[in-house]
């Protein structure tokens, strides 16, 4: 089983320019550990002082916000595309 992970431009400074990776992770907590293991420089930026993933980082699985799929509980399926977006923009009002 493998999922494709797309990383945002904002991460590239800490990932040596890597924009995309394949992962064997079963779920989001596993994926985060894998990202941090692959890119140790990213770790202090990904989590806050309490070790929690920063609130402004959003994860989407096949176009759906992972929070609507069960968040940490969601079990990745083979071929899932995981998109990471920092501080989603949009809106003005």
């Amino acid at each position, binding site marked *: 089983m493998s999922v494709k992970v*797309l990383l*945002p*431009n*904002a991460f590239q*400074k*800490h990932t040596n320019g890597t924009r995309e990776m394949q992962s064997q992770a079963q779920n989001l907590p596993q994926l985060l550990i894998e990202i941090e293991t692959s890119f140790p420089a990213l770790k202090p*930026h*990904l989590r806050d002082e309490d070790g929690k993933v*920063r*609130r*402004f*980082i*959003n994860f*989407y699985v096949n*176009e759906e*916000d992972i*929070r*609507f799929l069960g968040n940490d509980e969601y079990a990745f399926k083979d071929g899932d595309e995981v*998109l990471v*977006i*920092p*501080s*989603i*923009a*949009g*809106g*003005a*009002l």
Partner: protein
Amino acid sequence: MASFYELRCRECGKRFSNQPLSSCDECFSSLEVAYDLTAAKKTFTRERIARGPQSMWRYQALLPVPDDYVPTTPSGMTPLMAAPRLAKRIGATNLYLKNDAVCLPTLSFKDRVVSVALAAAQNFGFDTVGCSSTGNLANAVAAHAARLGLKTYILVPTDLEPAKILNTQVYGANLVRIDGNYDAVNRLCTQIAERYNWGFVNVNLRPYYAEGSKTVGYEIAEQLGWRLPDNVVVPMAGGALISKIRKAFGELIELGLVENKQVRFFGAQATGCSPIAHAVKNGLSHHEPQRPNTIARSLAIGNPADGPYAIRAINESGGWAEDVSDVEIVSAIQELAETEGVFTETAGGVTTAVTARLYAHGRIAPGDLTVVAITGNGLKTLDVLQGKYEQQQAIRPRLADFEALVEQDREEAYVR
């Protein structure tokens, strides 16, 4: 002389030079334009502002544009209107409307933010600009880009009101309909902005774009005779406007243009998409994303980018947030039109209905000076009024027929 400005992370404070960038590469939070107002303090006086153009550009020194920028569209400086008849209806005595239903050129508040965003786009040398939009922004980007000769890619959800689609296409804009809700469109736009060298007004130009919202706050203060109101009621979608009006008031205080005063900020959402109101009512510092389901499509953002900042602005100011049903939204559109002659779109219906509730629940005292931000025009959301009015049968062009009609009206009024 304009103030010195640069980008700054809203969480960790890291500074960035001016560039098309919306998130911090250290903590991945959003960026905002920060100013050094020292220079403006000496030169930016009430008298100088009064000599400026009758548009939002009278506050150019407090906007992130180069000193020599020459604006081409007179957006902003919309009427601040006393609203005594609506006030009487809802138990208020000192109520005003900030009427951006007549903001130029596309009849919504979005003309303000796009004016500033496209100034930044030109400054950064973009020949193509775009946005993700719930409609009003699409209209504004299309019109302003046409005037500046910029190419466009404007992305909207498929279920947008027909008027908002037409009001984008008429400017020759390149409109792309996306099979998904606004949050999906927005996510796609973020990806596109990373791939193409274009200026997306509410993605990579967002810090500059959002500054345009401050002009609502400057104008309210100036139109009140250089004083701040007690309360402001503001519609919330992405949540930026409410915190930017607060920022504007703060800058005016810092510049000595108004007396220091704690203005309370009240946020308005539709119940069918109320992540920020939900957070405020439940004492949460961050919102939980929602799947939008409301006729107020211009407010239908389930994951508001500025949600945490809107929550903060409301809580710190001693304000509150409320949400209202779709039925209440339509009634409020009618009530505002019938009492004050202002025809607003669904977002304005939300704000009007929430204002009424805030008075009814005692959140706002009757005598408080309260300004309600009306941000869009009812001509763009005519569909929500379908079936609300009976079409009277045509009469013959004869005075007798007309007299009979008036008599009939009188009888009906007597029966009622």
